């Protein structure tokens, strides 16, 4: 159970597929417009429950409870070795292959 006043992330449907504007591609029109927002949980709840939160600006939002204490997990990704090949091409062109000596 996630306790009241925990910092959480929720997800909410803003527009169902049938409520979306006509002026968008088909693949977008058949999915809902979704929202993710963080705030303090107002009542004890479990992941997946419909909950209410208090956001940083003091607004109330409702939605499905996704995560407690959501972390920043983005990274530099898997290594892309071609970047080293760019370096070699740049240095060879500028310095005439001295980097290989």
């Amino acid at each position, binding site marked *: 159970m996630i306790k009241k006043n925990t910092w959480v992330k929720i*997800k909410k449907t*803003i*527009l169902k597929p049938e*409520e*979306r*504007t006509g*002026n*968008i*591609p088909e*693949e*977008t029109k058949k*999915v*809902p*417009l*979704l*929202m*993710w*927002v*963080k*705030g303090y949980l107002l009542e004890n709840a479990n992941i997946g429950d419909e909950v209410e939160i208090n*956001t*940083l*600006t003091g*607004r109330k939002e409702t939605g499905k409870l996704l995560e407690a204490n959501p972390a*920043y997990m*983005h*990274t*530099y*990704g*898997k*290594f*892309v070795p*071609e*970047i080293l*090949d*760019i*370096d070699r*091409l*740049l*240095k060879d*062109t*500028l310095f005439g292959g001295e980097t290989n000596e």
Partner: protein
Amino acid sequence: MNNSYEAVIARKNDIMRKSVGIDYSQYEQDYISFDFEKMINDCGFGLDEIRKIQAESGVGQTPLKECKNITALARKVSKPGYGARIFIKDEALNDSGSFKARRASISCYQAKKMGYKGVIAATSGNYGAAVASQAAKYGLKCIIVQECYDSEGIGQPEIIEKARACEAYGAEVVQLSVGPELFYKFLLLLEETGYFNASLYTPYGIKGIESLGAELIEDSIRLTGKEPDMVVVTNAGGGNLTGTARGIKQVTDNKIEIVGSSVNLKGLHMASDTDFNKKSFTTGHTGFGIPFIMNPDRSDVPRSAARALRYIDRYVTVNQGEVFFMTEALSILEGIERGPAGNTSLAAAFSLAQELPVDKVIIVQETEYTSAGKHHQAQLAFARDNGICIYFGNPQDEIPGRSIVFPKDISLLKAVDLDLEEIKTKYIYNHIKGLKQISKRDLEFLTIETNTSIEFVKNLLTHKNIEVEA
């Protein structure tokens, strides 16, 4: 209150008027025209005042740096005597890490002055962090609305990082899946909070960049003894180009060539849930650049102050692989590690420098910060995970959404010119659609908007059987 999509959109004009404090209807003129200069001038903020506000809020006076090794590299593939000196304005050193701090500084200053409790901006770009940072300085609450994820909840690494940055400066971040109806939630938030709409497209959002244009000229004179011959600007919504060009005109009467550059994302639909994560650039690309230059008023205010066609002398595109390549070059040859999107203009400048003699000066007018997610390493890894083929070859063979092609030879990195006359023609046709006549003032407006001649516009009017009122 009825908060259905249709009802909220119908209240748009009222919500906008309350949230920016500008009555745009007073600038409307005849069939097409509005008084652009009056709209800009009515907001106040002379160059000296802008500089003072920015000096007190961690913005501006960034260093201009000569990229000597990148210039030398360009000369390796130029004909003898060619390869202009390339300089870069290190805008990443503004508080919050990009030139967008200049735009946010004036918007937040104005919001505070007008007594708003907070600011809201709809942006997936660096502008979010910029508004959050400036709001923090003025003690304003802040909400940033981002288009961030596809419907599966998979986010663009670059935008996820920008959300983190916004939160680091104390902002509330509202993230949405793909689609133009973001504007609906944006309007609801403006109405619910009564906050200031820190739009990128108000006069405040443009005025803030004029200091950048002015600094480019002053920095160039200090470092080279003369004004630059060419300034290359990354173009998306048109504000960067408009503000820079206007700032330049305030400090010099000389003609300086203004070149816009965008990343070529041809074929990818900006409102497509499935295309969303197939692109490696979330701003500075043709998906914004082309529609906004043709129709500036598609923005989040009734009349956009960003009107690139008035100021642009040349418009080029570069490919994703070329921008990533030059981002790595800036790091490995100049020792300056910066984010990729800001280097769109650097990639273009590298190609354009080869057209100019060695004594000419080209300025790339921005850089942006880099970090996890917002780094060419992270974005290339994300592209590869999304099935994009990454290889060395001819960048002109790149297919946005399918491949990223690094030049296998330096000489293959080439900026490609867009046909500006065609863009101007389309702009005019778009604006006269459905009309039988326009006024003389409209005719002048179209001429100024497209930086063409009365004759040029009249020819197109005749072609469409549209009369000019006597």
